[in-house]
């Protein structure tokens, strides 16, 4: 019964029923996960709904300041790097077609990938869900008798909550990406898929390092370089002695069996190269058909993600290479809701995502609420379409059903997406599915509002009366011409946003006046919508 507009709270007061059904492991003690809480069991669904999460994060002004600064910087960098590419649109078109063609042939490409990895000495596992993937990882680690592993930043290991799973079984998984290290040491949650600690500033990071890093240098300065060097020293010993590393992959190449990791710091190379055993967990959709296709994504990904011409390090490997790098390689192909997503003829385009984060960096909603408000490891516009699909969360009792509403539908995400995913279109499609899925039962305030407004809008007389009545809104709005706090049911809207005051004159009034004055507005050169425009038109005619 809950909706984005916050109606359930009111309704629950009336009906006395809880707004959302409490499910063990789904809802925490807070409306939203906050620093210091135990890490949620399900990383795709942390707890509360988006509006509840946003209500908490919007109050964190420091976070908003950090985030606003960061997204502005990254947006400007990205725009500059995209502008210097005359064939950007051609690359986007090719990328979109490559991904569509990958999805249409996914079963055969997966088998081809498996064969090629095996042919080069790798071991391939298949995992239906997070639990199965974790079990496979754990059994390999048990066999290797290790209690520590190093890992490359990877969204899919976040998705399956691998670190927590291993920690419960006595194995420490050390994050080696600087941002992930900051998040891990700070007992925090990532808030962005490329820059997970984007919500933190240097002073906060210094404080985290001093508190949590046992070998942090004395008198650490709150300076990005000093902090990065502290992380270097902290992790070097771990890299050199690690027996097993765990990674994801940005892209698998079916026709050769190659996997890739695009990164900046060299921590990825350390993990992929130094340990004896490498385990890569990869979503089944992270595939391209041919080696040639990497030329497209190697141009789109770095410019979209961090606004660089190229990320400092990119690694490709196929199975094992005798004498060079890990001599045992495990590839775990993970479904975890992806085949379900693929079955949705409209929404499945979300699987084309290459996880560059460009949509987050341009999203006005993300910029204001931050990644934590989405209550999923996949925040922002892509998360808003991916999370509900992976979890099949369309029911009003499921907090993730609110995610497709976490958008102004301004379209910036679709324009920024390097693989041309129609994010706004899918958001609308999912909203429709959610509405259809939840028909019947006690109507919500929103349902009632819609019914009433369609009655009024469908009847000329009623509409005229409504227009007259709306003028009262100018008094309510006051000097700043914004209506912000009104009683239910309109509060469902004004709780989250202001309503601009209605205009002093309605269009009908203006039209009637024009006709009285003997003008022929239907033939007017410019049809003015506002009284100001009407004066201008009059002048012209005089």
């Amino acid at each position, binding site marked *: 019964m809950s909706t984005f507009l916050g109606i359930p709270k009111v309704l629950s007061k009336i009906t006395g029923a809880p707004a959302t059904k409490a499910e063990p492991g789904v809802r925490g003690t807070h409306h939203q996960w906050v620093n210091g809480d135990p890490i949620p069991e399900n990383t795709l669904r942390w707890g509360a709904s988006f509006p509840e999460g946003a209500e908490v994060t919007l109050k964190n002004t420091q976070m908003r300041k950090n985030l606003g600064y960061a997204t502005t910087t990254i947006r400007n960098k990205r725009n500059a790097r995209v502008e210097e590419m005359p064939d950007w649109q051609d690359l986007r078109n090719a990328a979109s077609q490559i991904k569509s063609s990958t999805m249409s042939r996914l079963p055969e490409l997966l088998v081809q990938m498996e064969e090629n990895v095996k042919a080069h000495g790798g071991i391939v596992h298949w995992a239906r869900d997070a639990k199965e993937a974790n079990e496979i990882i754990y059994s390999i680690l048990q066999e290797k008798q290790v209690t520590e592993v190093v890992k490359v930043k990877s969204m899919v290991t976040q998705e399956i909550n691998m670190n927590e799973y291993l920690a419960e079984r006595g194995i420490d998984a050390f994050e080696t990406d600087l941002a992930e290290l900051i998040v891990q040491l700070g007992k925090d949650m990532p808030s962005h898929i490329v820059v997970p600690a984007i919500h933190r500033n240097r002073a906060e990071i210094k404080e985290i390092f001093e508190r949590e890093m046992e070998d942090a240098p004395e008198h650490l300065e709150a300076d990005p370089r000093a902090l990065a060097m502290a992380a270097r020293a902290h992790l070097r010993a771990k890299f050199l002695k690690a027996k097993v590393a765990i990674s994801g992959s940005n892209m698998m190449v079916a026709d050769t069996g190659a996997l890739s990791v695009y990164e900046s710091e060299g921590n990825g190379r350390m993990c992929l190269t130094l340990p004896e055993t490498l385990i890569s967990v990869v979503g089944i959709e992270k595939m391209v058909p041919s080696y040639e296709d990497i030329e497209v994504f190697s141009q789109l990904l770095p410019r979209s993600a961090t606004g660089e*011409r190229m990320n400092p390090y990119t690694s490709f490997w196929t199975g094992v290479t005798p004498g060079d790098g890990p001599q045992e390689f495990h590839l775990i192909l993970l*479904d975890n809701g992806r085949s379900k997503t693929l079955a949705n003829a409209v929404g499945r385009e979300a699987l084309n995502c290459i996880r560059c984060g460009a949509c987050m960096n341009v999203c006005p909603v993300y910029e204001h609420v931050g990644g934590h408000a989405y209550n999923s490891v996949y925040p922002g516009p892509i998360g808003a379409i991916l999370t509900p699909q992976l979890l099949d969360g369309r029911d009003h009792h499921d907090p993730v059903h609110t995610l497709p509403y976490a958008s102004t539908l301004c379209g910036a995400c679709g324009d920024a997406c390097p693989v041309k995913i129609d994010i706004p279109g899918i958001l609308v499609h999912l909203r429709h599915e959610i509405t259809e899925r939840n028909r019947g039962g006690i109507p919500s305030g929103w349902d009632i509002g819609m019914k009433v407004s369609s009655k009024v809008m469908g009847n000329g007389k009623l509409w005229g009366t409504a227009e007259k009545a709306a003028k009262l809104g100018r008094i309510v709005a006051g000097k700043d011409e914004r209506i912000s706090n009104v009683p239910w049911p309109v509060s469902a809207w004004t709780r989250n946003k202001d309503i601009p005051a209605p205009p002093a004159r309605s269009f009908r009034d203006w039209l009637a006046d024009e006709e009285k004055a003997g003008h022929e507005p239907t033939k007017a050169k410019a049809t003015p919508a506002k009284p100001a425009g009407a004066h201008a038109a009059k002048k012209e005619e005089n």
Partner: protein
Amino acid sequence: MGAREDILAAVRGALKDSPYPTPEVERNYRMEGTDAPGSEPVIADMIEKLEDYNAVVVRTNEAGIEDVIADFLKGLNSVVVPHGLKDSWKEAAGRDGRTVREDSREANLTHKELDETDAVVTASRVAISLSGTIILDGEPDQGRRAITLVPDTHVVVLRASDVYPTVPQAVRILSENPTRPTTWIAGPSATADIELVRVAGVHGPRNLRVVIVD
């Protein structure tokens, strides 16, 4: 049914009910640059991009390679070389009394030995001027991936004729041996994880020094 069969069946089922369109991939993007590989504008562009990444670049001819290598290594005490590196380059690496350690797939240096080594000298496979990227594919003159990762300074020799303007041109060459372990370097190592301020040098080599040979 096992997980493999289950997943494949689920994916097939998802596509059977509503097949995904299979468009012809239109590759209308730039395949080749306007300038020839290794031509003056391409090299100038490559140098500009490398310097933007804080790499140090010196251009020389065939006869000058050894001196540039030795210059780049001044002040350092030890250097690792892949066993397939040209002998005269190895000799240059060992000038001024530097310790030279050879590494190969057959005889690996230990991680500890690499960590105690100041620098590495390698050749390279191919480079891309559009993005200032140098690519190694693990052949005997470039060595194992670990040797260009652990020491703090990487001196890499790049032949001008191997510098291509576009990514597709380089990928075409790499696709001749697509299963080799391949490392693309647009470095040195860097991070922008703190307030998006770029800091050069985190875990990989903090110094990238490039010899471009005409």
